[in-house]
């Protein structure tokens, strides 16, 4: 736990490291990224162990969602870094010759990454990749709710990365508050809207730009899928997209499903079948289901089912065990729309299915709720796909799958509206931690002499002509042949 004094010392060191200019070198940045990659490979067992202890994640899930995606992201950054770092020419009209224009990316300085508990390694290190690639010095504040992961980061990062430029500062909300009192050059925050507001408010004091990756209720519209093979695949993806991703504790996990009334029963049956095949008849004994992070969230989820009107809608699952923080993959059918389970982000393995008279009504239903980090649609109907894309808004949208957009390096990852703003992943990470500086270079040789006072009608005419690049007019006016 940091004392205010040691925090000051750390920040001073980070500022000094940035000021001395070493982080601007491509070689330094690549060394850090490679160091991170080595950390992930050499400490893999330790990471698996930490994720199992803190979240009950199986190695395959940990690799798929955290370690593997990080390695992929690092490789992508290493392969593209030189390109990202190079100046980009900005086109100028021909008349502007020999002026040249370009955009240069520069690091922002000392950045703060506030991570969270559901992907404690992934959501700490993915932003770090971008921050380092962009040449910043970094503080990561991991979540205290996943202490083993937090300690692992605190112990391993100093060994593999430049300790004077990257620091892990552990602790709870009070440490977070302390950190937020300081001036950062950028903050990337992943977490809840409630805390997001506090982060942005603190940032406003210092005019620190922020990226807020928040949550929301991600809808999955499930249309009738005629082909049975396709249907099977859709069911697999939905089940893994809900229960197989940190047991539903993910900002982009499916929160609720929308389906046509006439397809509801078949859907419940298909999902039930798939849940059993993925998690077994006794999911309590399954090694493939993450557990709920802590008692507080367990009770929160338990409370969602307390209302008898909601409890009556449970059509599958529903069992819970406070001792092991286990919540069974659960399906509900048509809970009341004003119940908490339909108004708050669930963030757990409870899946409400809402039935509609026609699948087109999904669009309206989704638009009544705040914009979510992601929206999903399973359909072969192209016009419904188009409507979903153009008539709903969400951070991202996936068609016939869920979650995987997270792994795409070329897609920006971020929210909109209540689910946040700003984005990262791939080159978007690089840009989010950079300032894009416009550079214009002029020569002393050429001049529009009529841009200087004293003003007169002639000059005004010339300026009008110049603005529309009407060279003939310019020549005529200069020769005195054209008058207003």
């Amino acid at each position, binding site marked *: 736990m940091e004392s205010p004094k040691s925090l000051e010392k750390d920040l001073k060191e980070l500022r000094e490291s940035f000021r001395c200019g070493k982080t601007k070198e491509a070689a330094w940045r690549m060394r850090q990224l490679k160091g991170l990659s080595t950390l992930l490979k050499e400490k893999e067992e330790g990471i698996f162990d930490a994720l199992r202890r803190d979240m009950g994640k199986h190695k395959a899930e940990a690799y798929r969602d955290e370690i593997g995606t990080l390695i992929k992201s690092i490789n992508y950054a290493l392969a593209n870094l030189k390109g990202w770092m190079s100046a980009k020419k900005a086109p100028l009209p021909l008349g502007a010759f020999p002026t040249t224009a370009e955009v240069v990316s520069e690091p922002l300085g000392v950045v703060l990454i506030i991570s969270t508990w559901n992907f404690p390694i992934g959501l700490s290190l993915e932003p770090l990749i971008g921050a380092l690639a962009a040449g910043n010095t970094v503080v990561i504040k991991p979540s205290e709710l996943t202490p083993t992961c937090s300690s692992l980061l605190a112990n391993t990062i100093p060994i593999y990365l430049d300790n004077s430029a990257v620091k892990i500062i552990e602790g709870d909300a009070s440490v977070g508050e302390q950190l937020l009192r300081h001036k950062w050059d950028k903050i990337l925050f992943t977490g809840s809207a409630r805390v997001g507001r506090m982060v942005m408010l603190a940032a406003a004091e210092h005019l620190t730009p922020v990226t807020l990756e928040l949550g929301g209720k991600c809808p999955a519209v499930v249309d009738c899928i005629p082909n049975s093979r396709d249907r099977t695949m859709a069911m697999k993806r939905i089940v893994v997209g809900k229960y197989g991703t940190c047991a539903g504790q993910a900002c982009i996990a499916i929160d609720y499903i929308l389906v046509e009334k006439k397809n509801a029963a078949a859907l419940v049956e298909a999902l039930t079948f798939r849940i059993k095949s993925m998690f077994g008849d006794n999911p309590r004994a399954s090694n*493939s289901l993450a557990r709920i992070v802590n008692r507080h969230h367990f009770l929160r989820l338990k409370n969602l089912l307390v209302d008898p009107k909601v409890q009556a809608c449970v059509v599958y699952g529903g069992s819970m065990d406070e001792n092991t923080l286990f919540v069974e993959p659960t399906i509900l059918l048509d809970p009341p729309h004003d119940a908490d389970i339909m108004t708050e982000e669930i963030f757990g393995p409870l899946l409400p299915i809402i039935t509609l008279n026609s699948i087109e009504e999904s669009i309206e239903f989704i638009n009544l709720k705040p914009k979510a980090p992601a929206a999903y649609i399973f359909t072969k109907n192209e016009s419904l796909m188009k409507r979903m894309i153009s008539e709903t808004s969400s951070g991202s949208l996936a068609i016939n799958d869920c979650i*995987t957009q997270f792994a795409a390096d070329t897609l920006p990852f971020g929210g909109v509206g209540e689910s946040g703003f700003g984005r990262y992943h791939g080159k978007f990470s690089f840009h989010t931690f950079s300032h894009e500086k416009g550079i214009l270079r002029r020569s002393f040789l050429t001049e529009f002499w009529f841009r200087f006072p004293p003003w007169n009608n002639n000059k005004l005419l010339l*300026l009008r002509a110049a603005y529309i690049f009407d060279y003939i007019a310019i020549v005529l006016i200069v020769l005195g042949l054209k008058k207003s």
Partner: protein
Amino acid sequence: MAEKLKGTFDVHKAASLMNELRSSFNTGRTRSYEWRVAQLQSIAKLVDEREKEILHALYTDLSKPECEAFVSEISMTKASCKLALKELKRWMKPEKAKTSMATFPSSAEIVSEPFGVVLIISTWNYPLLLSLDPVIGAIAAGNVVVLKPSEISPATSSLLAKLLEEYVDNSAIRVVEGAVAETSALLEQKWDKIFYIGSTRVGRIVMAAAAKQLTPVILELGGKCPAVVDPNVNLQVAARRIIAGKWACNNGQACIAPDYVITTKAFAQKLIDAMKNELEVFFGNDPMESKDLSRIVNSNHFARLKKMLDEEEVSSKIVHGGQWDEKRLKIAPTILLDVPEETILMKEEIFGPLLPIHTVDKLKESFDVIKSKSKPLAAYLFTNRKEVKKAFVENISAGGILINDTVLHLTVPTLPFGGVGDSGMGSYHGKFSFDAFSHKKAVLYRSFAGDATARYPPYTPKKLRLLKALINGGIFGIILALLGRTKN
């Protein structure tokens, strides 16, 4: 319809305006290409047809010379409209994104969608341009807009209210006039984006208000823009360009006007002499009577600038100018030499016709001077030396940098225009305006054709191997994994 009366536009009015505009947005009308084009064409028409009234309003508010007003406000606004009209179809098209093995088989694109209802809080020094330019971006991106022009330029503010009501779709574009009370009422609403141009101090207030609603913001703020002059440059050209950027730009009341100059002790006098010469060419030997200089906008700002001049240690540093006339709100182009760093003039953004020159022994010391202040919106360098240009670009952080000239980078639509650090966040101009007011939604299309069963529970060691191969192993690794073996 313009909501004009002071004191009657309160939180309730703001809330009901917001509701009305949200319904407008929800009809989807503003998303169509046709609607956007129609609004942009109307704005271009507005600026064209009503040029005389606009120039008159600008003269009333700022005593802005016609030529300057035409170039810096009318032409720039027209150019912005024209560019948007020309490029809109291209800007609106989804951007294809490559996909990789990690999501194979799939295709992806990035779709631009409007945020929704946006608030643009404009300012007084270029009241037409700095109101309409962001509005153009917001409309191009398909949003519904509320514009709050500055009360410090009241003639332009009411003209904008009147003209926008006449020319554009009132159900989607509105003007709210007023001052602090009206702005506060607006800031309490839940906007989908806020674009603010103004001071650093108010920028903080705007961002804090936005924080309550999790509204993303673009802040175009100010700072002290330095102009570094290397000895041995073409003195006349450099002097002219500095003067043009300072006094021919609303008489120094511009966020990107050179605030102060840094040059070597040996060169300073030569620069001052060159500037004195050119100042006379530009504004005559009695600049207080020149028609080509804007006045100081109002008595508040006049008092602010006078205070800077009156501070002890400052008035003795005046080497040129220094005349003032409170009644006519005029201050002559004034050059000062080596004003002490602790004075207000050297600490705060001047935003007026006072140009301090700070001398150093060696030019490279100028870098430290600049870095000791907060990051400016623009930084200027006059030099012929390649290595100085390189060092400047690499080491000086500013919103934008211009070598061998001042201010002009603002006119290049292919450069992002915005600040960094205390000079702001976010950028606009050209396509950057469209992007500033758009949410870039990632859309991933997945086929049912292929799938990696390795991603599904129940998890097994074999699946783990396969996942490793799939995500990072490449083709060879995948084959090995499928054969039940791994590389390491």
